[in-house]
């Protein structure tokens, strides 16, 4: 075994041990109060393999872009398109990154999540196999990356645990689109963990579309450290899966660091969608914004837990959080837990939160102009949600959203 | 009354006032005019003792005492009043309550008996009538939701009630239409007396119709570059400040 292999073996063993001692989170834990995943304890889970038929990918981003494709969490080089990068920079699969000394994966992988240890990320660590690594430094030109996860599952219960690492240093910029797509009715569990370090004037824009299959469980954990004068942006669009939990922890670890987080969630039937966010202001003059909006139909359940924490040294911190949900059917329900935890005095923080039906007057106004009820509702819901997208001006996301939304509305 | 000598002031490490001299006697009205960014508001804040204005050299004597050693409330107690360019909103505190708290604080400072509630209401009513201030405005929170004109009238009302000896008016005419300017101007004019001095800081001379200055100073790039009588104000109205801006540069 090479030293890197040994190190990875140790890391995974620690994951195995740590997970074994705590198990899956329970609803008695404050952070999991509204999301119950104990059903994952039923039956055995096996690591997924490649399915026999793999449909060809439809890429979203055009122009100069690096493309990585994963199928059931396994890197699929046939569909991936990598580009030459200047020395000491890397964008590609995890296994190759491990071999490259200059990428130095072992100094970073596991270190960010260690500070926010959660049993679900321990489970990921225990099963590290594939994933992607982005490590850039001093690349002033923005780099576009698109990751496509084709998640099919297979017969029986399978799971996979993508483990991704992003390190942007010294004024590097990346626009990253990551999509989970799944068309099957297979039961699978997609548990991905991202470790992200954005520092020294760097900028990461992350756009994620969570659209796993009907019987899938999707849990993603993204732990981010944002350094001096750096920016982290994330927009998640969640519409697929039986249960989705999208958890983001952002540490504002430098003076003048900032985070902008947006989320749109669409759920119907008996789907459960959970957005959980912690933004921890640790340094002065750090800024954060959170805007999460969703529409719930059928007997779907939505959960939003958003926390702004301002540490005692973070004077001049500015944090705002908004969560708004429309309930489109009698049985839909929403649990919202916005939270402010403030330990410094020179701060400006706020949160706002609403749940309810669509605006009756607006609905009436549209109908009085001859628009049928169903269409009027769909127009209003789309208008309601698009506020989030307007915060993030990326044309391909807006187009994608439109497609996803139209399809979703038809199913409601 | 007020004597400023070679005043140098820094804000956030940037030199704003660069050797300002001024001599204001009891009962006099002086106008300070100048272009934007010349240091006019800085002067008003230094005089009233706001934090963040660092005096790097020079001195200010007020009634023979070192003004710079005093807290803001001590200056107010000794009769220095600043009419703010942007009066501050204080939600939930009624204007009446604010006025009374201020008036009694100053009376306490001067060793005078505090107002009783009824006397104070009477006293304020007198002043409000002249300034066209309604009872409703006194009930509302200080400056909250006030129009520009209401805010400035409220400043003049406070000035009338607190009976200062030195009034500093910081751009009191800004943002006012002709009618509002007349009410405010007449209000100020009525407060003139033999012992009360005024320092009128302004960009435009129109307020000086109501309170005619004994001296007019032009402030440019942090110091007084020209002094004259009221005619200077009219001259500036025609020529503007461009001349001084070049000179100072």
């Amino acid at each position, binding site marked *: 075994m090479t030293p890197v292999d040994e190190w990875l073996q140790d890391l995974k063993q620690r994951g195995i041990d740590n997970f074994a001692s705590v198990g899956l989170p329970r609803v008695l834990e404050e952070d999991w109060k509204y999301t119950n995943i104990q059903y994952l304890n039923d039956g055995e889970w096996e690591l997924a393999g490649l399915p026999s038929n793999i449909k060809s990918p439809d890429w979203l981003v055009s122009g100069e872009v690096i493309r990585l494709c994963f199928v059931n969490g396994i890197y699929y080089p046939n569909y991936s398109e990598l580009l030459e990068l200047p020395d000491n920079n890397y964008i590609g699969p995890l296994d190759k990154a491990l071999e490259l000394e200059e990428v130095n994966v072992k100094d970073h992988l596991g270190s960010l999540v260690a500070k926010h240890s959660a049993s679900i990320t321990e489970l990921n660590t225990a099963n590290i196999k594939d994933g992607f690594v982005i490590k850039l430094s001093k690349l002033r030109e923005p780099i576009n990356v698109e990751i496509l996860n084709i998640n099919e599952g297979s017969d029986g219960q399978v799971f996979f645990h993508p483990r991704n690492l992003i390190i942007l240093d010294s004024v590097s910029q990346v626009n990253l689109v990551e999509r989970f797509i799944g068309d099957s009715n297979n039961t699978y569990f997609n548990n991905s963990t991202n470790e992200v370090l954005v520092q020294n004037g760097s900028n990461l824009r992350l756009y994620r579309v969570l659209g796993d299959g009907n019987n899938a469980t999707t849990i993603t954990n993204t732990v981010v450290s944002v350094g001096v004068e750096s920016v982290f942006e994330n927009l998640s669009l969640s519409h697929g899966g039986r249960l989705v939990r999208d958890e983001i922890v952002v540490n504002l670890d430098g003076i003048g660091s900032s985070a902008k987080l947006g989320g749109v969630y669409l759920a119907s039937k008996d789907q459960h969608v959970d957005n959980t966010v912690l933004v921890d202001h640790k340094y002065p003059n750090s800024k954060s914004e959170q805007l999460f909006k969703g529409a719930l139909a059928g007997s779907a359940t939505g959960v939003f837990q958003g926390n702004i924490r301002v540490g005692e040294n973070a004077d001049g911190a500015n944090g705002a959080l908004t969560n708004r949900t429309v309930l489109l059917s009698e049985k839909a329900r929403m649990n919202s837990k*916005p939270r402010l935890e403030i330990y410094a005095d020179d701060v400006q923080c706020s949160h706002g939160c609403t749940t309810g039906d669509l605006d009756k007057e607006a609905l009436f106004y549209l109908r009085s102009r001859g628009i049928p009820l169903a269409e009027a509702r769909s127009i209003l819901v789309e208008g309601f949600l698009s506020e989030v997208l307007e915060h993030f001006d990326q044309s391909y996301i807006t187009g994608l959203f439109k497609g996803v939304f139209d399809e979703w509305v038809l199913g409601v | 009354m007020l004597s400023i000598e070679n005043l140098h002031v820094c804000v956030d490490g940037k030199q704003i006032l660069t050797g300002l001299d001024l001599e204001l006697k009891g009962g006099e009205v002086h106008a300070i005019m100048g272009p934007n960014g010349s240091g006019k508001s800085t002067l008003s804040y230094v005089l009233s003792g706001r934090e963040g204005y660092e005096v790097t050299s020079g001195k200010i004597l007020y009634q023979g005492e070192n003004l710079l050693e005093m807290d803001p*409330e001590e200056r107010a107690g000794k009769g220095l009043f600043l009419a703010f360019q942007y009066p501050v909103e204080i939600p*939930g505190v009624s204007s009446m309550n604010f006025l009374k708290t201020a008036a009694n604080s100053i009376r306490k400072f001067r060793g005078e008996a505090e107002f009783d509630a009824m006397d104070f209401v009477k006293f304020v009513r007198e002043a409000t009538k002249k300034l066209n201030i309604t009872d409703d405005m006194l009930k509302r929170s200080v400056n909250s939701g006030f129009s520009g004109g209401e805010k400035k009238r409220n400043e003049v009302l406070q000035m009338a009630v*607190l009976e200062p000896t030195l009034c500093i008016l910081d751009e009191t005419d800004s943002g006012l239409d002709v009618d509002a300017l007349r009410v405010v101007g007449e209000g100020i004019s009525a407060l003139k007396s033999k012992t009360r001095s005024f320092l009128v800081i302004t960009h435009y001379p129109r307020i000086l119709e109501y309170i005619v200055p004994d001296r007019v100073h032009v402030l440019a790039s942090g110091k007084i570059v020209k002094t004259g009588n009221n005619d200077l104000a009219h001259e500036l109205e025609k020529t503007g400040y461009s001349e001084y801006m070049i000179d100072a540069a």
Partner: protein
Amino acid sequence: MPAVDETLDQVKSVEKYKYGFVTDIEAETAPKGLSEEIIHFISRKKNEPKWLLEWRLKAFERWLDMKEPDWAMIGYPSIDYQDAYYYSAPKTSEDGPESLEDVDPELLATYEKLGIPLHEQEVLAGVKNVAVDAVFDSVSVATTFKETLAEHGVIFCPISEAVQSHPELVQKYIGSVVPVSDNYFAALNSAVFTDGSFVFIPKGVRCPMELSTYFRINAANTGQFERTLIIAEDDSYVSYLEGCTAPMRDENQLHAAVVELVALENAEIKYSTVQNWYPGDENGVGGIYNFVTKRGACRGNKSKISWTQVETGSAITWKYPSCILQGDESRGEFYSVAITNNFQQADTGTKMIHIGKNTSSRIISKGISAGKSKSTYRGLVSMMPKAEKSRNYTQCDSLLIGSECSAHTIPYIESRNSSATTEHEATTSKIADEQLFYCRQRGMSEEEAVALIVNGFCREVLQELPMEFAVEAQKLVGISLEGSVG
């Protein structure tokens, strides 16, 4: 330290908490500790019927199996429940005073010193009469205006007296809003409660005067476990106010009360609290642990319960006055000011449980933290499946004074009905520098300016207090923040 300085310092600290004196009165006290025997002792002292003793014992049994809650953002050394007295009563009142003339003059003097009128001819603040029930440690020592109220059919008396005179009412309602095993402190209270007030407003009656209970902890090492029960029958109205103080002591004392309100059809209960228990000194030594369960049930249609609280005292406050909105079109309100200074900790808020149709609730919470204190708003708004067209509006604002305090806002919003709407807004900030400067330019000292701005910040809540108490509360806001600036 020279003697003169020491005296000056003492005078100064007494002024800060002017209710900190001790009344020297002979008390009858149960043996220390908590056991079935003690519960028998209390029940015997109060000459209680058998059902109540059994109810207490059942609560005690449940309590033994329960765990002290640890989810609140408060910290304190573990409480030794065996190291406290659970019953202490002034000896003179053993059989209960027959009339005000029988009350021990020492006690009358105590209440006079506290500014609480126990003579019926005295009129508080010159506005209107207030009936007062004065609870001293474990017993009620005097209740005023009983006869006047009785003419209107209003019952206002110590709960121990109500157990004797109206057992059927007490038995029907006690524990019906806060079940004995609702939580750790409620169970403890159910087992050992000693006194508190009982109010019954019959159908169609608008209570002719404010009712008020004044709670005083006097004895050392004694917990106070009061129990208050207010029942408003159909179409009735009552406004009730409680005040609380305690001597300054270096030991922490436990106050674990339970308050239950029941509003029947179209009835309204307005419940106000000015809580000024001893907060401990500026080093965090001493003070009351105020662990209280308050809950109101809007059982009837169109009923209304409104909680207003001004919380300035106690070393630790743990309380969540709540409304269960069962009746259609019923309404719950919660107005709160919580001020913490020095080492105080407060974890307080409300629960609004919307069950009936067209129910509405409003929450206005203002938290002010100064010194090294910690203040948390914790609230739940729940729209149950049948709460059609129900509405909630919540506004939580926190103000921070100084860099060593903290403020937290933890709301839970659960909606299971699509026609129900919830709206929640919260802000946290410090007092704006320009506001402070503006006030100081007008001649106010920094402390005056802070008191004025904070009072403005709290205005929406303070104006909900009965007028007689609003002025007092405003002063209290200023006093509580003394020493927090400069």
